[in-house]
């Protein structure tokens, strides 16, 4: 962490302004060496300075540069942000100059990591910022920012406080068994308290799955026989919607054919091994592979032709369709030959000839993923896999507890599991172990010899 790191910290090509961020002890020196304007090494901290980026006297761009000195910066190190005019070529050129002058390209999330390691932010915040950086659409930006505001932390903290009080009540029964005035906590009490948290936790987990959609988008696989118009449909999406062309490494493990944002939700059209190829995918890669692709997708679009009868291949594919799928009947401008009366899946009729030809499909998708709800915008979900998995752990422990209560396991053993939930929720917040429980015990009860 002694070196100086840099990266383009805005999505390439999306906005009018791009920011090249530099962090580390040499960041001001490096920025100054490619800057024509004031001497950045002498300007006050937290100032914005007008000038030009130059490469051997050649002016690259007219820019504003923010100089922020340690420790009151995002990473707690010296930070410089060069606000340049968007455009991939210019931004890349500036990045290149910064790199040439001694900075190292930051790894994904490295700024946040430094902020975290320098004690600037806690774990939840770190993860949110990471999400914010990764955020590709307005929706997900909102989600990340909400999380930063501590709304999520507050909900989890409330759960923990509830559990802490329950734990203290149980512990006090154990440590002071002869105090008759203290309510004895029975498995039934626990069952009630826990049921409440269980339901709320389940809500959070479900909503978080939605949150995941907002953040990482919906993975769509388009499948179908050759020449049914799969690529035309894909291209329609990409043409009509704001196509996102960046391909920042590490954002997705899939090979993405294209990305489009529909009403602020990101759609990743994944390569199902050759949508664009003319070859028959079923024939070429076999049923197994297409099945796998379908299982991995959040949504499968099976394209068939309106003017043809369903072939055996079509029917094979229909039988393989997962729950979240739509049969896209293409070429609705041609005479209908297809018979869909025996098909239980959702079907929409589209064409790629007219400008709004695929609107029925878009509407169906919005309905399917409950866009209206997603767009309401009160996002307080867990938004990364680690948090969601911890919440699921906690949820499963609650189920263990319910089982234990069924089996009449003694309360003090049940309590061990309650403590584990409390710890899991604490892990979501990234809090350290502390004497919270002991403190709670003594503020909640009147004890002593």
């Amino acid at each position, binding site marked *: *962490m*002694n070196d100086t790191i840099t990266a383009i910290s805005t999505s390439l090509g999306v906005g009018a302004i791009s920011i090249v961020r530099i962090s580390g002890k040499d960041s001001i020196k490096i920025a100054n060496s490619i800057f024509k304007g004031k001497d950045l090494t002498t300007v006050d901290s937290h100032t914005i300075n007008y000038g030009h980026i130059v490469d051997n006297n050649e002016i690259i761009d007219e820019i504003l540069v923010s100089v922020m000195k340690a420790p009151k910066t995002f990473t707690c190190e010296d930070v410089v942000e060069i606000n340049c005019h968007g455009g991939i070529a210019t931004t890349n050129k500036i990045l290149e100059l910064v790199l040439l002058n001694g900075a190292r390209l930051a790894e994904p999330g490295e700024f946040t990591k430094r902020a*975290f*390691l*320098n*004690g600037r932010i806690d*774990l939840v915040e770190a993860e949110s910022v990471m999400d914010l950086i990764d955020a590709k659409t307005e929706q997900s930006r909102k989600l990340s920012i909400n999380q930063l505001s501590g709304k999520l932390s507050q909900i989890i903290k409330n759960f923990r406080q509830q559990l802490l009080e329950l*734990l203290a009540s149980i*512990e006090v*029964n*154990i*440590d*002071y*068994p*002869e*105090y*008759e*005035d203290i309510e004895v906590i029975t498995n039934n009490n626990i069952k009630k308290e826990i049921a409440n948290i269980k339901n709320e936790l389940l809500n959070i987990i479900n909503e978080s799955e939605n949150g995941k959609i907002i953040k990482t988008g919906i993975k769509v696989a388009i499948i179908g026989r050759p020449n049914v118009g799969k690529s035309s449909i894909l291209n329609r999406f990409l043409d009509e919607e704001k196509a996102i062309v960046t391909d920042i490494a590490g954002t997705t493990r899939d090979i993405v054919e294209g990305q489009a944002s529909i009403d602020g939700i990101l759609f990743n059209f994944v390569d199902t091994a050759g949508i664009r190829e003319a070859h028959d995918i079923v024939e070429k890669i076999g049923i197994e592979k297409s099945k796998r692709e379908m299982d991995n997708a959040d949504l499968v679009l099976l394209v068939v032709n309106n003017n043809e009868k369903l072939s055996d291949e079509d029917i094979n594919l229909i039988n393989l369709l997962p729950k979240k799928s739509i049969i896209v009947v293409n070429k609705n401008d041609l005479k209908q030959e297809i018979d869909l009366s025996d098909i239980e899946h959702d079907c929409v009729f589209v064409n790629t000839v007219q400008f709004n030809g695929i609107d029925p499909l878009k509407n169906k998708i919005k309905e399917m993923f409950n866009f209206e709800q997603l767009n309401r915008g009160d996002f307080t979900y867990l938004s990364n896999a680690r948090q969601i998995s911890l919440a699921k752990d906690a949820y499963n422990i609650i189920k263990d507890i319910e089982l234990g209560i069924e*089996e*009449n*396991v*003694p*309360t*003090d*053993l049940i309590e*061990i599991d309650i403590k584990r939930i409390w710890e899991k929720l604490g892990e979501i917040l*990234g809090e*350290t*172990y*502390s*004497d919270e*429980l*002991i403190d709670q*015990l*003594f503020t909640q009860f*009147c*004890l*002593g*010899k």
Partner: protein
Amino acid sequence: MNYDIIVVGGGHAGCEAALVGARTNHNTLLITSNKNNIADMPCNPSIGGPAKGIVVREIAALGGEMANNIDKSFLQMKMLNTKKGPAVRALRAQADKITYKKEMLKTLESEKNLTILEAMVEDLIIDNDVIKGVILENGDKISSKAVVLTTGTYLKGTVLYGSTKISSGPHDERPSKFLSDNLKKLGFRIKRLKTGTPPRIEKSSIDFSKAELQPGDDVEHFFSFYNENHYDVTKQIPCYLIYTTPVTHQIIRDNLDKSSMYGGYVEGVGPRYCPSIEDKIVRFSDKERHQLFLEPESIFYDDIYIQGFSTSMPHDIQEKMVHSLPGLENAVINKYAYAIEYDAIDSTQLKPTLETKIISGLYTAGQINGTSGYEEAACQGLMAGINAVLKLDGKEGLVLKRNEAYIGVLIDDLVTKGVIDPYRLLTSRAEYRLLLRHDNADLRLMDYGKSIGLISNTQYNKLTNKRKNINKLIKDLKEYLLNPNNENNQYLESINTPKIVVTTSLYDLLKRPEINIKDLNKFIDLSYDEDVLEQVNINVKYEGYIVKANKEAEKMAAYENIKIPDNIDYEQIHNIAKEAKQKLSEIRPTSIGQAMRISGVNPSDITMLMVYLKRKNNE
């Protein structure tokens, strides 16, 4: 005079430490201000209870004396939390204070390597940060290779009631006035703590008909292991339960500023778990009444201890308070309640062996380390003694882990977190309390006791036998398969458990909550000792939970096993927060596990520390 070990103080910590020295053939000297106060119980007349009772069992397993001694001197025995799970069961004894002292003195005097000296220690002899002995009040010097300080509440002890402040230990004993100043000069951080004790009432002046009887258990219990003695359960002495009245509360509220505490006469920090009655009434003002237990102190004198009524009010107010209690309208106070302040050292200046970091060969145990409670003191005395002799013998110290013993939890808390108010053990301080049970302390710890030489062969053979029997019985239960035939199912129904439909092992059957191991007598020979049956019953019934606890403990152990070298320089590690750096430099944890438990050290600091250690190891 020249000794291997000098123990300063004859309380519960001092006795254990001295006995370890003597029993491991080290020439040991116990210095106390008054021989008659050895193993004195200046406060409550009981030993054991939740967590503490398990500590007494652990002391027994390691070869300490407290368990044996209380088994010889109890007035009543009670197993607490019997309606709860096995992990929290704990034994408590009401002690006869006189018998307890007498028996302990007898034990000490029977040790041939142990000398008892009545004197006051005022200073230590130190050469190059190594302990060389002690200096008495009269200037005499006694040399030794190790010193264990167990000074209790005597370091600058001050007794308080109302606005009265007297320099004294309990029982009007002389306090040690200079030792703590001398410790301060050596670099120990001295803190002031406070505790208190309730009034003692003349038994014949109490009308017990207004109180609720609290008898002992009607089955026999012992703290020591494999004890084959018997006692008459009907001859146990009862305790009584009463409640404070609105009048009591009014008297206290009206006179609050007369108490030492609220009048501002107290400097020390009092224990949260043992608040005075005035504290309780102020802090929990909505509570209409508080429970009080009337407990006998001995059969040789008539003092009744009012548990729950500790106070620092002046004597005239104490009279009024006592007389407001049901059954105590005409009570005679034999001894007034008082608060006591004393000096303690900062326990984070200790190594996990209880040796001080500053002076090699100097150990501290008990209230001087900021704890309170006889059991807490005794177990530290035992561990300090054990570690002193291990060091004298050139062996590695014994540090019990948090998943091995409550003693491990206590000492780790002391040296890692330090104390603000007097520290008491609670079950909630233990992460793995399902593993730290009353019933399995011997299985957990007796091997250590044996290796140190504090457990006799006879006793150890019993442990070996017990282990063998447990394993055999578990094996038999697993191997005995029950057919779902009519006869078997009829029996199962007769003991109120559902029929079986497939062949089922007795082991699996025992997992059913409603089945007791003794119900299986019909199928399998169960002529084992009770404690074997109990062990098997618990291990089978709670197997799932025990496995989980063990897994958690293993996770923690992985961190405990990442050792931090003694000579680490935290200034050299970048990116550790300043506060964490300071805490780490101060406490100097021996493992990552310990470092994680230091307050103010965050997960990110631990990450950086681990990265640093890894890099160092690779170099």
